[in-house]
């Protein structure tokens, strides 16, 4: 009974109330000078700043979002194209898995930020370097999620397919891939959010646009309001992408929606 769902409508109403209480408390604390607005501007001040950044003559916010999204999605898709096939192979072949696992264990905990020096040395300061930062920040996780998803496919299904005459390639195409898809999509959703956290690292050097860049320069100019707008923009963008991803899941996994709860 403890894990009972509240239902979409009720949970969103409660969520909205929670958010409202949080924002009001924040607003009051700043307006009564309990919190110095220089350290943390009030929500209304942040909204003002956001409006200013979207409507002014040289408005930058929407362009920033677009540019950052391009960088993140390019790096992320590169990770998917390399990580998913590699993960499938690793999931199916214990020898390859045993050989690659230690390497992945070394790479995976490295923060995207730590790749800046090497990526600059190898790729310079252009867009490739930014894609590389996002790639390095998300690749190992995608590989691990794919491997796990592949390994979680019930081995009895492989047997059933073999018994029906499927070749190894057909098993990969018709059993492993669709069988791993639900876990794989869940993993990719998590990694997409991780990829967004890399944008700060990716836009630390050699950038002159993007949300990460905007946060860094706002810091140099002591513009806390703009820092917050940048941060919230990242959250909102990830949230929107998450919703889009859910839509993709519904399209790709129709059977899950129909059979949920059984």
């Amino acid at each position, binding site marked *: 009974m403890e894990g009972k769902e509240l239902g979409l409508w009720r949970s969103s109403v409660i969520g909205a109330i929670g958010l409202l209480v949080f924002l009001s408390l924040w607003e009051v604390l700043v307006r009564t000078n309990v919190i110095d607005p220089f350290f943390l501007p009030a929500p209304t001040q942040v909204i003002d700043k956001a409006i200013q950044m979207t409507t002014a003559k040289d408005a930058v916010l929407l362009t920033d979002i677009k540019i950052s999204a391009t960088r993140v999605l390019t790096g992320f898709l590169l990770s998917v194209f390399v990580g998913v096939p590699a993960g499938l192979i690793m999931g199916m072949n214990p020898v390859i898995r045993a050989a690659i696992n230690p390497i992945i264990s070394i790479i995976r905990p490295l923060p995207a930020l730590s790749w800046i020096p090497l990526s600059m040395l190898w790729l310079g300061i252009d867009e490739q370097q930014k894609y590389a930062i996002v790639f390095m920040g998300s690749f190992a996780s995608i590989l691990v999620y794919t491997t796990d998803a592949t390994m979680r496919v*019930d081995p*009895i*299904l492989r*047997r*059933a*397919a*073999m*018994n*029906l*005459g*499927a*070749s190894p390639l*057909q098993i990969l195409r*018709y*059993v492993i891939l*669709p*069988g791993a*898809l639900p876990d794989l999509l869940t993993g990719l959703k998590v990694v997409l959010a991780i990829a967004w956290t890399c944008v700060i690292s990716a836009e630390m050097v050699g950038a002159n646009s993007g949300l990460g860049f905007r946060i860094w320069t706002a810091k140099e100019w002591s513009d806390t309001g703009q820092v917050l707008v940048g941060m919230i923009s990242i959250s909102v963008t990830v949230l929107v992408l998450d919703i889009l991803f859910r839509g993709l899941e519904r399209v790709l*996994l*129709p*059977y899950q929606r*129909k*059979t949920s709860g*059984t």
Partner: protein
Amino acid sequence: MSEALIKFDNITKRFSLRKGDIVAVKDFSLEIKKGEILTIVGASGCGKTTLLNMVAGFLTPSSGNILLDGQPITKVEPRCGMIFQNYALFPWLSVRKNVEFGPKINGVSKKVRREESAKYIEMVGLKGFEDAYPGELSGGMRQRTALCRVLANKPDILLCDEPFAALDAMTRQIMQQELLRIVNESGQTVLFITHSIDEALILSDKIVVMSVRPGTVKHIYDIELPHSGKVEVQLTDEYLKLKRQIWAMVEEEVKISMNIVSS
């Protein structure tokens, strides 16, 4: 005896474990004729599932050969269609797509596929549920789908690994009758594994009782009960006498196996 569809020729299967080798099956010989429904009963751990997996080609015997139509089985054999206890249906495919899986990967055209699947779906009584996903079905319907999927692949023999063990008693009874009806309709050869003596008696032409570890043939019964699958059969004297005999034999083996476990 040349008409044997499956022939176990002195099969031994050893598994190497860390503690040492375990002989699961030893010197096992048996023949299954075309059109026959043969059931293997035995205590758990007597190696009956190992036997089935060897026929399907998932395992290879340590010594001896299993012959299918006189040819040794060396790889996974689609001609031996397996029905798993846990259905093993593809949850992302509808009933129809599950049934068409075998024909599809074997290159049967879409049109023929559709016609055949419709025929088999009707045969197992799933008409109207073609577009449902396995997750939406009851256990009995899932097992019908699994049966249907194997039949659509036109195997020479049906291997059933305790297929009704996960079902409730009533559904189980109905499924047993259904299986009999379908098998009688199509003249399928069936190798059935169960630990339920009732199930064996209702379904089989022949019952093989296995001894435990190492698994060998202990006794073979030819059953001449009417195969209507009707519940009434179970109340006849002949039925009860057979049941008592087989149970006495199996009980002995169960006790042995429990002693082995506890020692």
